[in-house]
């Protein structure tokens, strides 16, 4: 990323194009204050990005000699967040209307919670000036707009209280008439935090004529709603973009993931694809047992595919792994007619009923006593974990049965299953190896 080579501050951050706003609209004054504020900060304009929302205020960025981003309605904060995360050194100023605080409410809240370093100027004129004067989140009670012909019945959003309560670092409320607005904007940018200025103003096209509003009205509404003006909140939470990069710095240069080869060390004699289903219950380590089978297949020079299925409530209900083992690449990972099934619980059996019904007489079903009454054309082998030389907890049952099934089926060398268990050494490895050995015994 190239940095600017020389710093040039401008006499004004405004370009020569005149504003397009209606006579008496507050936007004129706010933008003049923004230009003055940027001048006071002596910022290189190339380091400033103005991100505007939709609405009359969304036109604003075009009148500034800075970089600019004009996006979709309500989403200005999301673009600004992306800019700031990618380039924390830039000064990012968001211009949005009161409308944006409604449609983009989730973004406003989230940006405040992150305390990400954006300066948000809310051009708050209580209605949608661009689209015909409809009501917004901030329309005062009883106010007439084109969509509240009988007077607004919604409680106006207290933008300042909301962001202040949720992590913002700097919160100010005032009007476009406030003489110190440019100083407050400069102060907010300098604060390098989520800074929001709720700037009340008059929409002379719609709000003023419909509500006989004037400069004095702004103060009256503030008093009626008990929404204070001035600097309302300051907090010293960590700024998100800087905090992210600081936290990430020690990870820099850590190796990225690369393919993780499994070298064949055993020989298997499988001549056609073999479909195996392991069906049990959550918490039974069904999926990890199946994964060992898949890895054992690779260790035996075969190809394997494993599809797991479990309900969204991961700690309850069925847990089913469908494995295809094959002497060649597996392009189709579905299982329509299993060659073998390991059935560990009623939950598991209920899930695989269709595939169980499709099994042929030369198929093999390995069932624990709980599900030994299963109806199938396949040959049923009863596995009795209770007769194992040691007591098996729920976490070892599936691997014990899988090992027993593989031993009987003879499709993989048992040594490959043990080797698979040692591919990812952990404190459980000893127990896993023991389970495989007693299962295969």
């Amino acid at each position, binding site marked *: *990323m*190239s*940095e*600017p*080579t020389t710093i040039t501050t401008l006499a004004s951050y405004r370009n020569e194009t005149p504003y397009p706003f209606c006579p008496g609209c507050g936007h004129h004054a706010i933008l003049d204050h923004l230009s003055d504020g940027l001048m006071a900060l002596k910022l290189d*304009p*190339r380091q400033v*990005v103005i991100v505007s929302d939709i609405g009359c205020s969304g*036109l604003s*960025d*075009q009148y500034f000699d800075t*970089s*600019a*981003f*004009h*996006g*979709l309605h309500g*989403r200005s904060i*999301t*673009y600004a*967040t*992306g*800019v700031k*995360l*990618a*380039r924390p050194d*830039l000064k990012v100023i968001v211009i949005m209307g009161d409308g944006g605080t409604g449609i983009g409410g*989730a*973004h406003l809240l*989230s940006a405040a919670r992150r305390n990400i370093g954006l300066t948000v100027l809310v051009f708050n004129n209580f209605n949608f000036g661009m689209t015909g004067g409809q009501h917004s989140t901030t329309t005062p009670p009883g106010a007439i707009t084109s969509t509240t012909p009988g007077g607004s019945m919604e409680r106006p959003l207290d933008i300042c209280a909301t962001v202040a309560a949720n992590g913002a670092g700097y919160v100010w409320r005032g009007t476009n008439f406030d003489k110190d607005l440019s100083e407050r904007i400069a102060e907010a940018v300098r604060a390098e935090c989520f800074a929001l200025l709720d700037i009340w103003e008059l929409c002379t096209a719609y709000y003023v004529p419909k509500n006989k509003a004037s400069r004095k009205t702004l103060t009256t509404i503030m008093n009626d709603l008990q929404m204070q003006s001035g600097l309302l909140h300051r907090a010293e939470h960590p700024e998100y973009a800087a905090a*992210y990069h600081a936290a*990430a710095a020690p*990870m*820099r240069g*850590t190796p*990225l*993931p*690369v*393919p*993780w*080869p*499994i*070298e064949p060390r055993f020989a298997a004699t499988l001549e056609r694809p073999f479909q195996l289903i392991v069906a049990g219950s959550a918490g039974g380590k069904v999926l990890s047992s199946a*994964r060992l089978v*898949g*890895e054992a*297949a*690779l260790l035996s020079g075969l*190809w*394997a*595919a*494993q*599809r797991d299925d479990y309900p969204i409530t991961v700690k309850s209900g069925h847990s089913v792994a469908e494995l295809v083992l094959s002497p060649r*690449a*597996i*392009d*189709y*990972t*579905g299982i*329509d007619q299993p060659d073998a099934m390991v059935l560990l619980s009623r939950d598991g059996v209920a899930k695989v009923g269709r595939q169980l019904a499709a099994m042929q007489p030369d198929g093999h079903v390995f069932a624990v006593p709980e599900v030994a009454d299963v109806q199938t054309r396949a040959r049923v082998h009863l596995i009795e974990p209770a007769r194992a030389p040691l007591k098996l907890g729920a976490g070892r049952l599936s691997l014990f049965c899988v090992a027993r099934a593989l031993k009987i089926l003879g499709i993989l060398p048992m040594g490959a299953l043990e080797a698979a268990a040692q591919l990812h050494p952990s404190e459980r490895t000893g127990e896993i190896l023991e389970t495989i050995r007693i299962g295969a015994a």
Partner: protein
Amino acid sequence: MREFTDGSAAIVRGALEAGCTFFAGYPITPASPILMQMLRELPKVGGVAIQAEDEIASIGMCIGATLAGARAMTASSGPGLSLYSENIGLAIIGEVPLVIVDVQRLGPATGGATTVGQGDVQFARWGTAGGYPVIVLAPSSVSECHAITRRAFDLAERFRCPVLILADKELNLTTNTVDIAGYEAPPVRARGVLPAGEAPYRYLPAGDVAPIGQFGGDALIRFTGSTHDERAFITKAPDKVAAMNEHLRAKIEDHAEEIELVVADLDAGATTLFISYGVTAGSMREAVRTLRAGGQRVSALTILSLWPLPERALRAAFEGVTHIVVAELNHGQYRREIERLARSAAVSGIHRVDGELIAPGQFEAAFASVEATA
């Protein structure tokens, strides 16, 4: 040497190799593994990954970060793609290189959370207002998930546009065996540099793409989602607006042959052609092997670049063919494109919307039925 892995990991590795430095996403099965892996990996390259408040913010952050110099990706599934919609339009008009992964699941709405589907094929192409083209790629194996992701980043830079990757639940969440030597690494071009003072957009000749500007560099850069001139100032001047929109169309549609990517497994003596894409193309490959082993003659075309329509490759594959069978996990979304192009062949479909894969046996049955009528 082989590894035991899945499409999610392959996409993440492809993105990292391609120079991805920014990821924002929102949790959704079956795309969440990409989010979680990018969160773990991107800090290692000085990049940023974040779980955003929703999918709208995810893509919005990606667009903002790209203007600040990042190479960005987001990933979701059908419900999230729906929320991306308006910002896809913004990325189109603002000419933002961006990679969007849609790990498809069965829809509509929450649908078969989480079973496999390929119902987003037309939505991916037409998923934003205005009807302007995007590029849509579809891997048909775990290994292709990696290569296609690299390709997506390259095309995003080449054409300054969103590139969608249509993956699916089966490719991304099912662990499969991959021959490591078979991973392809298509080249990924570096980002162009906009010379200081040059306009960030270029409309003439139509389809010519200017390098994207970058905030915080030597020059001021503007960006807008409104119709704009080359310097990104809003304009409604009809000649300028027409030039901009024609450029947005031409830069993709007039370069379809450059984007085109298919695997053509054609038998000159076959009169039946299978066409498929994504995970269903895997079943097609199995079926073709079985049919040929049984002495049958059949051709197969796997479409890796769904949009713009790879017309040249399709027409070449149609040569000498009397029957075309299009297989997909929807009611026939891509079949309608084939029907439109294949005037001299009978087109039928294999379709499935029950959350299960199309089995190789369904191709074999379709082949038998076609040959019986021939």
